[in-house]
């Protein structure tokens, strides 16, 4: 009796209920915030033609060589007309989020030699790594106390071994009141290479999609158009957190008025279940715009969202999550029959 009342209320409300809430199949990581920062400063950074070959270890200790060239920062500052370039050893550095400060001295003096008086003795730079790609940004290069603003960039950084990712389930996004949005954690491989601060981009190229991406939809459906996958903004790889990012898949919103609830109940009522929404998600790692390196798809994830009699299931690359959700088709049918019977008989 209680169930019937509930179903009756639900069915009464369904056609009138109007959903609210944001809409997304794959909303990007909820952790995106001002704290996002690039974390890998290794590699060779070009500043106005100069070469800053930097590395830092797990303890934050910087090392490397700075190579100044005649037409680079030297020329920009204009104080060293006779300096034909030189090499500098990194003697210190620090990192604060996406900003890196490094300093160096003439390489020869490190081993006790005399500084070349035609060239600056001390060089330093403050570099800010920018997204996308964490491979470019703004710099202030300083030669013996005289600074100048420059832009820097490095080659898009990728590991020597192939990139991949591992998907693990992480429940439902109930923390944000999205009970039918599945949370997945993806860890970009290899974990020995730091992708922190980068964005994993997703795409759904039309020629890669399943022949049918919406098996719930039926011709001349009076409520929904067929689902076609579409990408959304990139997924942020947590800074210094083991190459992990979050991919949330499903509907935003909760309650009987939400779009997701209505869609699930509609297709259960229509009788086309079990049915699925399918997509092939192709993942690429971001690089700075116009980077000469080709974008490489490092992971292809089949996505399957299934409405069955009583369950709502979401699967990413074969990793499933499932929950009981909304009235089952059996309940809906019995609710309708109960109402019809009551209306006809008055009992």
């Amino acid at each position, binding site marked *: 009796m209680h169930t019937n009342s509930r179903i009756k209320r639900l*069915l*009464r409300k*369904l*056609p*009138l*209920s*109007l*959903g*609210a*809430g*944001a*809409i*997304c*199949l*794959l*909303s990007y990581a909820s952790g995106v915030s001002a704290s996002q920062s690039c974390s890998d400063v290794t590699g060779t950074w070009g500043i106005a033609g100069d070469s800053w070959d930097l590395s830092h270890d797990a303890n934050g200790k910087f090392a490397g060589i700075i190579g100044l060239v005649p037409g680079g920062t030297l020329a920009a500052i204009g104080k060293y007309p006779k300096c034909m370039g030189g090499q500098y050893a990194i003697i210190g550095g620090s990192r604060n989020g996406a900003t890196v400060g490094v300093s160096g001295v003439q390489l020869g003096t490190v081993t006790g030699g005399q500084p070349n008086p035609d060239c600056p003795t001390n060089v330093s730079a403050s570099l800010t790594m920018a997204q996308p790609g964490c491979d470019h940004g703004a710099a202030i290069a300083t030669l013996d106390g005289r600074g100048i603003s420059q832009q820097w960039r490095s080659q898009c950084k990728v590991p020597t071994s192939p990139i991949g990712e591992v998907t693990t389930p992480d429940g439902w996004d109930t923390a944000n009141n999205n009970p039918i949005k599945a949370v997945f954690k993806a860890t970009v491989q290899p974990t020995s290479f730091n992708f922190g601060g980068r964005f994993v981009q997703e795409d759904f190229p*039309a020629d890669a999609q399943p022949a049918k991406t919406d098996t719930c939809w*039926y*011709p*001349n*459906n*009076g*409520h*929904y*158009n*067929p*689902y*076609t*996958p*579409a*990408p*959304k*903004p990139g997924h942020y790889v947590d800074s210094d957190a083991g190459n992990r990012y979050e991919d949330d898949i499903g*509907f935003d919103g909760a309650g009987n008025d939400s*779009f*997701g609830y*209505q*869609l699930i109940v509609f297709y259960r*009522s*229509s*009788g*086309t*279940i*079990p*049915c699925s*929404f399918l997509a092939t998600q192709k993942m690429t790692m971001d690089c700075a715009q116009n980077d000469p390196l080709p974008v490489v798809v490092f992971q292809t994830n089949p996505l399957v*969202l299934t409405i069955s009699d009583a369950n709502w299931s979401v699967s990413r690359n074969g990793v499933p999550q499932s929950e009981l959700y909304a009235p089952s088709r059996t309940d809906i*049918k019995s609710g*309708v029959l109960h*109402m*019809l019977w009551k*209306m006809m008989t008055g009992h």
Partner: protein
Amino acid sequence: MANQHMESKSRHPFPSHFRTPLAWIFILALLIGGYARADSVSLNADSAKLIYGSDSDTLTIDSGRPLMRAALILQALYGYVITYEDPWYSNSDDVVDIAPSTIKGYSAFKPGNGPKLIVPRSSQLSIKLPASKKLSQDELFGRLQDLVKLQKSKPRGGHFQVLQTGDSFHIIPAEARDRNGNWSTQSSLLDTVISLPQEDRTESKLYLAIAGAVSAAAKVSMTVVVNHPLSYSSKSDLHTNVGASNETARSVLMRALSVHPTKRTWTLMQTTESGPNVFSLNVMDIPTNVAAVSY
């Protein structure tokens, strides 16, 4: 015309919460009475194809909503907003039960005991379009008029008219057959005059408020879908203070569309699956890819 339509709608004697079960009873009655056509996949076609030619392209449609499908493709081709509104189907010859070919496990039901799934019956349209990717407003208006005339030559389905507001076009119902098969004038549900308090709302809430106001005034149940609920929609939480005072729902909707930075359009479908008084207002980003709407 509008008043006549409104009067007929306002005579509805049942409280709103009985409407869904009554809709089911209506559908069952149609079928038990033998009015509904035999189900058939051929009566439930829903396809739209654009065949490219050297001098002109050919748009061929076979659908229960041929003008809606045409509007989607024309929007993708030419970039104009073309909204579409279903007629109010009440003649059983205009609809078809697709349950046997659509509902999973239908064969398990005893003959005559299976559930029903009622949708508009398909019809075909074909029209030539210029190969040029640019069409003036006048030219597009002419093409839409051609489509409306073509549809009018069909024995089934609704008859329509075309309205233009600014650089947007609206395909709205003009006539449909009543239960006895006589053509009768219809007015647009979106000609319903509504008022909304001017207050801060999200964009989605504004659509819901418009649908709610039309539902109350016209004694129907109008649901809202904004894009497909599984599709990512950027800036879905934009706020607006759009209100309305004795304004047609279409006019308010046009203002609501302008809130979003992306060009948007709508289709208003009669959800015959759920009963005769149920409508779905689908607001969506204007299609930009012909392939995506050529399903």
